[in-house]
Structure formats: structure tokens, C-alpha cells
């Protein structure tokens, strides 16, 4: 199906759409909020991937972060659901028309506090969706309480000092066998966009933990989730440059250090990983654990594609559904014939 472009002049993409066709309503978030720049990168990524907005569904929970789906892709269906409950509503919605892609935007409170259970189970079901956590270590919308990703020892007004171990969202995703785990930093729009494009091209759950500073409530020098902290402590894992391709590219077999590695996505496009000296292989789950565990001990913020597995069937695959979108099936597909009921009645005794 081809898209209906807006009556806008200016450059268009392969879908025949201009950037404007991907815009959302004006943001109502604080100026300088990390969430805004992420919204902009979502717009850019979808434009560059030639995605038709009507073929995307947007989801979120409740929070400043969860408001952002209103700020991109106005032409896409969306649902701003309940606090911590994005996972379940998105999971159910995926069955309506399985050809649609989904982008979910959640917050660290929304995902790691109240939404932990739903998040973990969504991941283990490999629901095909790009799951973004706009991670600022605080509750923005409720004005600055600790979230579960706040680091130990962080002090906040009226809240005292946080004494609990922070939740590492990438670690949690990995433990639940996510098939795509990445982390980035809102202050690094280029990497955010590239990872978004990789995620959107992945078939399966793609968890993107994006450190997204809250300028209003969590920008102490000492806070992991503040701009300042992020800038100093970032250690980009590897550069990524994304090359949309028209035909499938196979994953090269054995691969040595220094070499350039390509991971083939299900839509045929690929992520090119320039491998760094520390020789990181995003398909090695065991290494991924080690790396995260280490980074955490060294209090480092590792960004990049941490883990990817392109082989697992998605939740939807496992249901072996008919070709037609379920939500376009009619009475004749859905209501069994009268005879069948007579048989059933005959059995009922």
C-alpha cells in the first residue's frame, strides 16, 4: 500500500512523504528535556527508513516520557495507556494487524518501577516492537522522586537519599532474553537515530535504553542521568552507520578482530559495526553480561548495540495467523457454520 502524502512541497522520501508527514504536535515538555531530542530522532529515523506512518503504532505508559508519542508521527495510531502498563496493551494491539510496526516510549519509572513485571514478560515473549526507555533516573511528571534507575546515594529534595541498588534496564532486558538490546544518550542524536533505525528494522523486541536527562529535576552534577554526567562518562562502544539495502545480506561467518561486522536485519537492511579494539561481539550473550556487569562496577555508561539475535521467532510468529489482518476478517471467517453447532450440541450430554 502506498502512502497519501500531505500537500507539502519540499523533499520526499521513497514513500513519497516529506519530513512534515512524520511530525507530531508541538511538545509540552520542558525546553531542554532529553525526551524532545529523542522524539526528533524518531521522526528522522522513520523518514529515512521510508516508513509509512499509517503502518506504525505508537504506545506509551504515563509520564513525561510517555507523553512524547504525541510529539511525533501524528498520522500514526497511538495509545497513551496507564502508568507501567504499556507492555500489555501493546502486546494485545500487535494482533490486530500483524503487518504494522510498533514504537513504544516509556520512562524509567514507567518501565523499571511499576512496569517491571510487564516489561520482563513482554521481552521474554519477544513481542516485535521497538521499546524505548527514556531514562532520566527520576519521576519527572510527578516532580522529582527517585525512580528505580536512580543511583545509590543520590540525594533529591524532599526525598532524602536513595539507598536501593539501581535497575540496569539493559541487564534486565538481557536476563529476559531480549533479542535486541542497546543503550544510547539523548545528547548523542546521531547514535540515537542509528540505533532507532536498527531497532525499527529488527523483528522481535528491541529494547533501547536512552539516557535522557531531566533538566528540571535531575541535573545535579553527580547524577548519572544528567547531561553533565553523561557527557563525561560516555564510552561509545562502537560507531554504527546504517545502510538501508534492497536485497538481503548474509551474516558473515567467522569474524576476526579489527574486521567490520555486518548484522543482517529481517527487512534485509544491515547494521555495520566498526569493531573497536576491545573487540566487542554483540551476538555473544555471555560477553554482554560480563560487559554490563563490568561497566556497572566501573560506573561506566556504555552506549551502542549491546546484544542482538536475529534468529528467534516473534510472539506473533508463534501463533501462525492467517495472512489477512485479523481486524479485517469478516463474519464468514469468524463465525463457524450452523452444522458445526449441531455437532457440538450432539456431544453435549
Amino acid at each position, binding site marked *: 500500500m502506498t502512502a497519501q502524502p500531505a500537500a507539502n512541497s519540499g523533499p520526499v522520501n521513497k514513500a513519497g512523504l516529506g519530513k512534515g508527514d512524520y511530525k507530531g504536535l508541538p511538545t509540552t515538555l520542558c525546553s531542554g528535556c532529553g525526551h524532545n531530542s529523542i522524539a526528533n530522532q524518531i521522526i528522522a529515523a522513520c523518514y529515512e527508513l521510508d516508513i509509512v506512518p499509517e503502518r506504525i503504532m505508537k504506545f506509551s505508559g504515563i509520564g513525561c516520557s510517555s507523553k512524547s508519542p504525541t510529539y511525533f508521527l501524528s498520522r500514526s495510531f497511538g495509545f497513551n495507556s496507564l502508568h507501567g502498563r504499556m507492555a500489555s496493551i501493546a502486546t*494485545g494491539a500487535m494482533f490486530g494487524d500483524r503487518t504494522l510496526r510498533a514504537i513504544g516510549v516509556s520512562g524509567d519509572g514507567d518501565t523499571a518501577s511499576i512496569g517491571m513485571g510487564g516489561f520482563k514478560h513482554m521481552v521474554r515473549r519477544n513481542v516485535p516492537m521497538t521499546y524505548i526507555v527514556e531514562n532520566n533516573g527520576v519521576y519527572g511528571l510527578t516532580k522529582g522522586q527517585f525512580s528505580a534507575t536512580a543511583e545509590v546515594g543520590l540525594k533529591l529534595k524532599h526525598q532524602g537519599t536513595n539507598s536501593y541498588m539501581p535497575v540496569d534496564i539493559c541487564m534486565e532486558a538481557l536476563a529476559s532474553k531480549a533479542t535486541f538490546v542497546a543503550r544510547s544518550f539523548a545528547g548523542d542524536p546521531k547514535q540515537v537515530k542509528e540505533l532507532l533505525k536498527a531497532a525499527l528494522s529488527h523483528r522481535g523486541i528491541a529494547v533501547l535504553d536512552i539516557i535522557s536527562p531531566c533538566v528540571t529535576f535531575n541535573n545535579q552534577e553527580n547524577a548519572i542521568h544528567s547531561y553533565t554526567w553523561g557527557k563525561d562518562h560516555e564510552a561509545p562502544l562502537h560507531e554504527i552507520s546504517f545502510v538501508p539495502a534492497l536485497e538481503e545480506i548474509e551474516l558473515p561467518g567467522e569474524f576476526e578482530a579489527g574486521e567490520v561486522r555486518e548484522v543482517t536485519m529481517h527487512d534485509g537492511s544491515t547494521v555495520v559495526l566498526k569493531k573497536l579494539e576491545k573487540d566487542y561481539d554483540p551476538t555473544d550473550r555471555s560477553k554482554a553480561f560480563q560487559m554490563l556487569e563490568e561497566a556497572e562496577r566501573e560506573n561506566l555508561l556504555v552506549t551502542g548495540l549491546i546484544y542482538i539475535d536475529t534468529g528467534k521467532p516473534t510472539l506473533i510468529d508463534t501463533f501462525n495467523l492467517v495472512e489477512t489482518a*485479523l481486524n479485517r476478517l469478516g463474519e464468514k471467517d469468524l463465525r463457524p457454520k450452523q452444522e458445526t453447532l449441531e455437532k*457440538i450440541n450432539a456431544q453435549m450430554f
Partner: protein
Amino acid sequence: MPENVCNDFSITIATVNGSGSQTANVTLLRALFKMGIPVSGKNLFPSNIQGLPTWYTIRVSGEGYTARREEQEVVVTLNPASFARDLASVKPGGAFYYADDIKMPLEREDIAIYPMPVKALSRAADVSPSLRDYIANMVYAGILAEMIGIDMQAIQQALSFHFNGKEAPVTSNFNVIQAAAEWARQNLKKRDPFCVEALDKTEGMILADGNTAAALGSIYGGVQFAAWYPITPASSLAEALNIYLPQLRKAEDGKATYAVLQAEDELAAIGMTVGAGWSGLRAMTSTSGPGLTLMGEYAGLAYYSEVPVVVWDVQRIGPSTGLPTRTAQGDLSEVYFFSHGDTQQVILLPGSVTECFEFGWMAFDLAERLQTPVFVLSDLDLGMNQWMTQPFQYPETPMDRGKVLWEGDLEERNGVWGRYKDVDGDGIPYRTVPGNQHRASAWFGRGTGHDEQARYTEDSKTWEEMMKRLKRKFETARGLVPAPMVDIMKGATMGIIAYGSSEPAVVEARAHLAKERGLKSDFLRLRALPCSEEVGEFVRQHERIHIVEANRDGQLCQILRAVMPDQAAKLHSAAHSDGLPLTAKWLQEAILNEEEKK
């Protein structure tokens, strides 16, 4: 020996949970049904998997009464743990059958006592030793059949149905039954009056449980998505979907037109259901009390964002975890006022197994027509017990998918529409669903304040208007939900209102009150909330109304008083809840006590 009491008594069989007595019990039930004798069977089981006492009661009633009775004329026990209690429970003049390996005092002169050589006879049967405990059940089945006169052919039919036709198990079980019957013929002299005789009163009826019926009804209603989380007594509803959907709803190419998903909990189960409903699917979930309560937040979202979903609540007795294997009608007021803020929920109240089927498909039509959650309140008694009921009726009306706009519809409207606009004055707006490719099709769902275009707004007027429209929609629902069933006795001034599985007790009580006390009554069986017109009329037409329900607080009575204040004074509550189905005996007394007050 006293003269025969035919086709009017109750049999209770006491065994140990997990010993596999269900086959024998259901076989007896089916055999009686096959003989054309009205029966009802109720399983009283513990919330445990193995080892605790469990009872199965079969009521035989030539007059067709199916309510629970307190008296037990015939009692069979294989369980030492409940032996004393079982013996005591036999009605004077009744019969007591027991496994003779149980050595316990038998001090009762007023009943007929029959020992059964269960061990011996099961050892005699040629089955693997591991199956002996199981086969023991066939022994009492055979002896009982012989002693009360159940037709052996009917038993064979019942068995072959149970093992759907498989030769081997049918014969091996049947052989034991026959041997046991033979033994009884030789060794037991009938000293009690209770027996059965073939009738023609089950003609055209079926035997089924409400959960299976609900699943089948949903399937014929075109269910496309079901998310659930296991909980007694609702699990067998979703499991019936797992059993029947593959048989009934695969496309030619063997691919599925549905998805059933076991969620991680009820918060997720209803969340997924709401997601599926929003995406245009006929979506449902099924649960019971504790799970239902966890669904409150999403129920509020579905109400306010107007997402069609169907929620089956197979009620068990609460509050809290309560008694997972006991029945009640205790969730009505919670659901009617479900979730915080002002909500009015649409509720269906099936009163029979066949109605579970009917409401199974109807619930989807109502949910999609009204764009709101529809709650169907069944209960353990209705859902898990075998009932004699009318055959399932194929839906007489085509599916009503409600006001959904697709690409074409939007073209016609030049893309001009408003998700929450009351175009038709019935309070029901139009909707589109994901996948619609028209560039004006998308809208953004939310549980926050929104205007007719589904845009976020904090404007007070808009909020108020949106809520008033929802109230109008509820008025529309009043005209769409199934009307009550009314049964009139000429000259009655007193009325009875009941719902759900309480009907059998009412039917029986009314008959007795009229016959024995000359107290006539009209009967309205409520089938849904909001109340349709007929309910108000019925109330106004009577001097006094007794509202019958299986809960402590008279929940429906409270709701009716609230919605018809000018009639409230004449609404009397006849409520009772101890985990067991209501009996006609209790109801008669309750009504008589109340009537005496006047």
C-alpha cells in the same frame, strides 16, 4: 418395606479428592439423563489437589427441579475421613452405602445401610494394580445403579460418551460396573424406597457446564483474541477456548483466525485484551474475584477511552481469596461501580448454561456496538457444574461490529470525522482501528481528558460534556441489553427478582409457596444492568418485591434502591451466602419471614 419414592431424591457420593471419582459420578448423572429423568449434579470439592474429602450430589427430580437440596436421601461413601459426617447426613428413612473396608461405628437404626466390598471387587477386576483405586469408583457406580434401578444400557451409553467411543476403556469400566451390579443383585436386599424410573423429560435437552458454553458462545461470536490468567473457577473457560478454537476456527490453510494467550497476571490479561479490542479485534478475558479486582484500572481506561472488551467473571465466594471452590454472586456492586471516578458498567447476568452460550456471542455485539467493556457475571455453580439445559442456539442475528470506519468510509467523509463526536445522538461515537491506511484515520487513545478529536485537553466544559455523553451512552445500553424474563401467576401481588444461578431455587420456591401456602408470586429474572424499562414496570406493578441473591449484603437490592428511589421502600433483600448454591427451602423461609412482617 415402605412404598417406593420414585424420581424425587438426592444422592451424595463422598470420595477422596484426586481419586478419580468424577468419571463414575458423571456417568451416573448422564445415565439418569439418558433415562429421561431430570437431573442436576453438583460437585463440592476442596481447594486442594489430592487427599481431602470431596462430595458429588445428584438430584433426581421428576418434576424437573434442579436447585440444590439440603436433604440427602441416598449417601455413598468411600472416604474414612468423612465417614461419620456422611453417615449423619443421611435423611431418616434414607440409604447409606459404604466401602466395607472402612471399620467405623454404624449407629443408625433409621436408615438402610449397605456395605460394599469395594476392595474385593476392584481386585477382581482385570485392570493394572495402579488403576485399582480408580476402578473402585466403578464398583459403587454399579452397585448404586442396581439398587436404585439405573438402566445398564444408559450407563454404557454414558461411558462410551465419556471415553468418546473408545472400545477398551468403555468395556473395562463397564465390566466392573456390571460385576458390581451382579454382586449387589446377589447379596443386597433393598430396604429403602428410593428408586428411579425412566421418563421422557430430558427430550431435546443437553447436559453441559457454563464455562464450556461460554467459550463456545464466544467462538460463535467470533472471538479473535483472548488473554487470561489461571484462576479457579474460571480457568476451564479459557481452556475450553484452547480445546474448541482449533476445531472450529482454523482457515482452510490451517492457519488461525484467533489467538489465545496466557498472560503473566490479570493486570496484563486485561491490558492485552484492551489493546486487542482497540486494534479492532473481538477481545475477551476471563477471571474470578481476585483477578477481577486487579483489572479495575484497565476497566476504567476501557470505559473512558471507549474500547470494546468482554470480561467474564466466574464468581467464587469472597472477599479476598475466600473459598476458591465455593460459589457466590458477590461481585455485582464492585463491577457496577468498577474503578475510580464516575463509571457505569454494562453487566450481563446469564441464568442458565445455554444463556452462557447466548451471552458469549451477544457480549461481543454489545461491546462493539456500545464501545465499552461488557462484564458477564457467571459463577462457579453455573460455570463448573453439569446442567441440564436447552441446546445451544445458533445466533439469530448477524454480527454487529458497531460503528467502525474503514478507508472507504473516510473517503466518503473526505477524512472529516471525530473519534468522540456524538453524531447520531445515541452517545456512541465512531472509531477507526490501526491498519486503516487513510491519512485521516489515526487518533490517539488515552485515559486522560480528551475532546471530540481525541486530543488532550484540561478544559472543564469539554470534560463535563464527554462524561455526560458517556451517561447518554449508558441510556442507549439500557435499550440494547437483554430484557428480563418475566413469569406471571394470575393474581399475585408479590414479586420476586433474581438473577444468574439463583433461578432454580426461585422456581421451586414459588411453586411450593403457591401450592402449600397459597402465596402467589410473579418472577422477574434480571439478565443485565443497566435495567431495561420492564424492570421498573415490574417493580411498580407489585406491592412488595423480594430480591434474591447469593451474597451477604443484598448487592442487587442496593443497586435497585439507588436507581429507583421512589420504589426503594418496597424492595426487600433475600440474600444469603455460605458458598453453596441457594436452596428453595431457605428461600421459602426468607420470603415467609419477610411477608409476615407486613
